């Protein structure tokens, strides 16, 4: 696969790993946060932690749009699914996330019409094909995905498709990073920046991190080579005593972002005054809501949503894990009451959630000091 294989090339990966070892100052302990859940997933999926020296610690950030959704919002969405006339659509990522009365798939097993879509455009098409039903699209995602939802709403309005609505749960990344930096118990030396969000917002929105907080940030792609090269960039900056925004993902990320995408978002969305982030409390101006001009396609206007705040079980430490204050394995419920089979929080369900990533890819891996294939196991 072009533009993928080259960035998964073993020889290049090894080279980047060597460079990291060369650059890392053995007297320092580095704490780098990868903001985006997609990076968390990639790091585990490709086993990149195995390639890093002991003194580079990767802290998982809150950039998992499924993980940060409070259970109450999931319940709100599912309340719409209970209407027999509604076709509840969402990305596959949402399907196993538990609400108080079960996940979307569990609702489906009980008779609700729940369907996975790959694109919001597919949800709109479904509405066009089923004029006697109402199609509700449960929208999630950061700024990467919001423009696609925006374009779909614009299209729905232009085509006059009335049996379609969006339950908007888009969140924005900058307030999340700000919350991390404002958190007294967090010490982060540098950031691995979210590459795909940046195709929309560009690199400028991160300038305050470098300028005001004096932290380097490298906007990174998602292949092993990208992530390792970003770490090289961060180490070089720290070594030189610099703090700036660097674009590692130049082949795809424009410094100024995507104007058409930003315009589409501005037409359809407005910032909610505040929004609750699971485990992080209410953050102001951190989420998108649908503008009045598109109220007819706003599921929160079309349906009565319970709007109940659901607090996580006291023992669940989703918030701290989300912020990177705790490693998944340090949560008291990890691997016991909370596993992918019976998840308590979304971090254990979402493919990007650090708990799921850790559980699925890392958990039973013990340090392999010697691999002895000559040991015979007694019968």
């Amino acid at each position: 696969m072009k533009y993928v294989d080259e960035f998964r090339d073993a020889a290049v990966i090894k080279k980047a790993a060597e460079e990291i070892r060369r650059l890392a100052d053995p007297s320092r302990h580095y704490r780098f946060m990868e903001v985006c859940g997609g990076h968390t997933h990639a790091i585990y999926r490709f086993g990149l932690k195995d390639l890093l020296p002991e003194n580079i610690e990767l802290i998982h950030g809150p950039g998992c749009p499924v993980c940060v959704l409070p259970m109450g919002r999931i319940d709100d969405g599912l309340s719409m699914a209970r209407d027999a006339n509604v076709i509840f659509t969402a990305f596959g990522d949402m399907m196993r996330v538990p609400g108080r009365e079960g996940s979307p798939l569990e609702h489906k097993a009980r008779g609700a019409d729940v369907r996975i879509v790959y694109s919001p455009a597919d949800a709109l098409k479904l509405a066009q094909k089923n004029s006697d039903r109402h199609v509700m699209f449960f929208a999630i995602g950061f700024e990467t995905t919001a423009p696609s939802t925006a374009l779909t709403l614009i299209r729905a309005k232009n085509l006059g498709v009335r049996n379609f609505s969006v339950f908007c749960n888009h969140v924005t990344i900058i307030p999340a990073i700000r919350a991390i930096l404002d958190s007294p118990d967090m010490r982060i030396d540098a950031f691995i920046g979210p590459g795909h969000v940046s195709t929309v917002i560009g690199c400028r929105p991160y300038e305050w991190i470098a300028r005001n907080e004096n932290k380097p940030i490298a906007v990174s792609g998602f292949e092993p080579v990208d992530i390792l090269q970003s770490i090289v960039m961060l180490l070089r900056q720290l070594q030189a005593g610099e703090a700036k925004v660097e674009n590692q993902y130049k082949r795809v990320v424009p410094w100024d972002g995507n104007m058409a995408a930003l315009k589409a978002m501005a037409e359809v969305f407005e910032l909610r005054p505040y929004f609750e982030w699971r485990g992080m409390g209410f953050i102001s101006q951190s989420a998108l809501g649908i503008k009045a001009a598109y109220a007819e396609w706003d599921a929160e206007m079309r349906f009565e949503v319970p709007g109940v705040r659901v607090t996580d079980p006291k023992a669940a430490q989703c918030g701290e894990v989300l912020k990177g204050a705790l490693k998944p394995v340090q949560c008291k419920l990890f691997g016991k009451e909370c596993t992918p089979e019976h998840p308590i929080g979304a971090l254990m369900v979402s493919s990007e959630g650090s708990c799921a990533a850790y559980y699925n890819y890392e958990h039973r891996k013990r340090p392999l000091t010697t691999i002895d294939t000559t040991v015979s196991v007694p019968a």
Partner: protein
Amino acid sequence: MSTATPKIRFRDAQIEMAHGAGGKASRRLVEGLFAPLLVSASDEPLGDAALVSVNGSQIAITADSFVVKPLRFPGGSIGELAVNGTVNDLAVAGAVAQNLVVTFVLEAGLPTEVLEAEVRAMALAAQRAGVSIAGGDTKVVEHGKADRMYITTAGVGRPIPGLSISARNVRPGDKVLLSGPIGDHGITILLARGELDLEADIRSDTRPVLPFVQALAERAGAGVRWMRDPTRGGVATCLNELARDCDLCVTVFEERVPVHDGVRGACELLGLDPLHIANEGQFIAVIAPEFADAALAAIRSVPGGEDARMIGEVRAQPQATVLGTTDYGGTRVIDMLVGDPLPRIC
């Protein structure tokens, strides 16, 4: 040899799709509900087929149900799956399928020509696989049930002499052999449903694997420790079952696993891992290292076996784990999924 696996009691309040997906939920159902109540206690881990004794002779017996939407897809149809699936379960248990019985559950309103097409497909598949269909049963249910048709086949077979298949035979140092590219069937079905608007030149890999198993038995039979066909749940599920049953580490060399381009592309686009996708014409064999070359050559010598590869090996640690390793030294645990693999966007 293997540490006792804790008894899993089935506590779910209702049955979900995940319980049929071949992953962790399926395992919980089988081990927690069916096995304790139905299967007489035995030390032998549950396999694809059972060896039973009838009048002093050992025969292998198995059954499988086929539920697929759509019924016809590039590379095959439900009828073919129904025959090949059971032939393959017997083959990987080390037996040559001899007779099948078939039951149909048909939805009222099913056009006869659809049924006829499937029955013809079954007859052809049976001929190709060298099995005879000894009889069967039919039920018809109301319109709206049975998704047009469900087919169950049960089969009996003669154990192949010289083969002793059991997870207990597996040792560190054994090699893991895969018969060919993975993911073709599952992705074909996914695309054939038409919900994802993806087109690719992929076909189901449904075929009998018996000829490969026979070649293997002939040229490397003494070295064959264990076999399984990676159907629902894919290679990952199969290898996890193995790792758990033999309490060793199954290591997969990720770059060695063969995947067709179209399957790879679809998986990358949808965020799926080919290791979790169903196959209907492949099998995995664990071979003693001194027989590994002969085993690979045996499978490759049979038409259709050219893409067979040695994809991994068994190690002592970490126990009961499947580990993926790469040429650049990165490792990850390859786990079973809870239920069906779901496309993702994050």
